[in-house]
């Protein structure tokens, strides 16, 4: 290496970015060339001068950044939750209800909590039975609340279970956010009618997004014979990885373990990374062994 080549490479040399042979050849040149050694020293000083320019952000700035990020992420998380989940959280946070009352559902609870028995008194004495149902509410800062109440006249419908009209009513009851108890009982009826694709869709929807684990378990029961259907498999996989109820996850793995699809193998492997429940872990390991999938990474 000559002097020109050496000087050109001093920057890379100081940053340790030369390959072994080039560095070797530069060092040999430096050994025999005092002028280039002096240039190297000047280059080192330049580096040191630049080092002193480094601006270290203060601990306060870092703390402020983290605090703000935490708040923004929390907002983002809430913003991306489905509406009924937001309301569910709100309800759970604001009105800690006795466990026995919980299945009644959010809207009914609000009515009970704010109105107490008055609602029922108001409806007494009417000739036709009617139900006042809270459809919306706006809490005010002074502790009051404004309710949008819907009055529903009750009517009795009778018909066969496979009657279209009855099915449609049942499907809408399956998603009625006001009454988890009613949703559980609807699932109970619907779960034996899964040969209908609209019923199956309602069950998959409930399994994916109903806030009540009892409803999700009933939906799972109904979907049992369909565990090889790709759409059902997909929902089962996401439930297995994300549902917060161990009972629901246990049932999901029981349904998925028989399914030999390659995607299920991936789900089972991923499950091992995050699952703490010993039964579910055991079942997942066993299923993976049966399909000779690699366990090495775990």
């Amino acid at each position, binding site marked *: 290496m000559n002097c020109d080549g050496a000087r050109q490479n001093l920057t890379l040399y100081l940053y340790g970015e030369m390959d072994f042979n080039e560095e070797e050849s530069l060092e040999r040149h430096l050994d025999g060339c005092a002028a280039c050694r002096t240039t190297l020293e000047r280059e080192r000083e330049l580096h040191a001068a630049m080092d002193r*320019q480094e601006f270290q952000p203060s601990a306060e700035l870092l703390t402020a950044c983290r605090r703000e990020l935490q708040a923004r992420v929390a907002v983002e998380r809430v913003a991306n939750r489905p509406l009924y989940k937001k309301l569910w959280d709100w309800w759970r946070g604001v009105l800690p209800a006795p466990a026995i009352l919980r299945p009644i559902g959010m809207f009914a609870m609000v009515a009970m909590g704010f109105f107490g028995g008055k609602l029922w008194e108001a409806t007494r004495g009417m000739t036709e039975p009617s139900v006042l149902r809270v459809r919306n509410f706006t809490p005010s800062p002074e502790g009051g609340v404004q309710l949008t109440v819907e009055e529903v006249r009750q009517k009795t419908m009778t018909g066969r279970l496979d009657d279209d009209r009855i099915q449609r009513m049942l499907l809408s009851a399956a998603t009625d956010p006001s009454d988890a108890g009613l949703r559980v009982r609807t699932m109970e009826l619907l779960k034996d009618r899964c040969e209908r694709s609209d019923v199956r869709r309602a069950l998959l929807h409930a399994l994916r997004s109903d806030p009540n684990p009892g409803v999700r378990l009933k939906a799972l029961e109904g979907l049992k014979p369909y565990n090889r259907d790709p759409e059902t498999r997909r929902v089962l996989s996401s439930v297995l990885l994300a549902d917060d109820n161990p009972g629901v996850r246990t049932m999901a793995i029981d349904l998925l373990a028989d399914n030999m699809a390659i995607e299920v193998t991936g789900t089972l492997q991923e499950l091992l990374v995050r699952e703490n429940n010993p039964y579910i872990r055991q079942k997942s390991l066993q299923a993976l062994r049966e399909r000779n999938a690699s366990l090495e990474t775990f």
Partner: protein
Amino acid sequence: MTASAVSWDEADLIRSAQTGSQEAFATLVSNYDQGVLRLACNLLKNEQDAFDIYQETFLRVFKNLHSFRFDCSFRTWLYRIATNLCLDHLRKRKVRKEEPTAVTSQEGIVDRMAVVPEMNPHRDPQRSYLSQEVRTRVEQVLGTLTPRERMVFEMRHYQGMRLRNIGEVLGTTEEAAKNCLFRATQKMRTALGDFV
């Protein structure tokens, strides 16, 4: 870079964060956020701007983490987001001629960091007039670098990243990153030649 660049611990952390673990996401952020904040502070020389870049970077990480596929290291992916935001900011600033690195006062050109003393709490008060002068010059030169040269210089000199990795972050080759670094240090050398 291959998937092997992601350590297993980190891969677990990323997967947990991908499925919504707040704790995993917080750990991931705290592993990298000082480096990102330092990069933004050094490049933008302004705490408010650095604060904004920090927020935008990690919010994007939060929103897009589900699409991270482990085909590069997490650090590379994160720095791609952060450097793009910084580059956009530098380019906009250049166009608008807003908040220049060096401002003109009655005494001539003054470096902004000297005007805003609280910017660097770690500054040595015993620093001689000569190094004050060097500092001013370095700041001036940094102001004349293109955003890209500036970025490569920051990442190599202050963040200690390898040129290959810098190329990867900026979506270019190691050779192109090397040329940027050459141009940046050459400008520094010219400006500081008689001081060091």
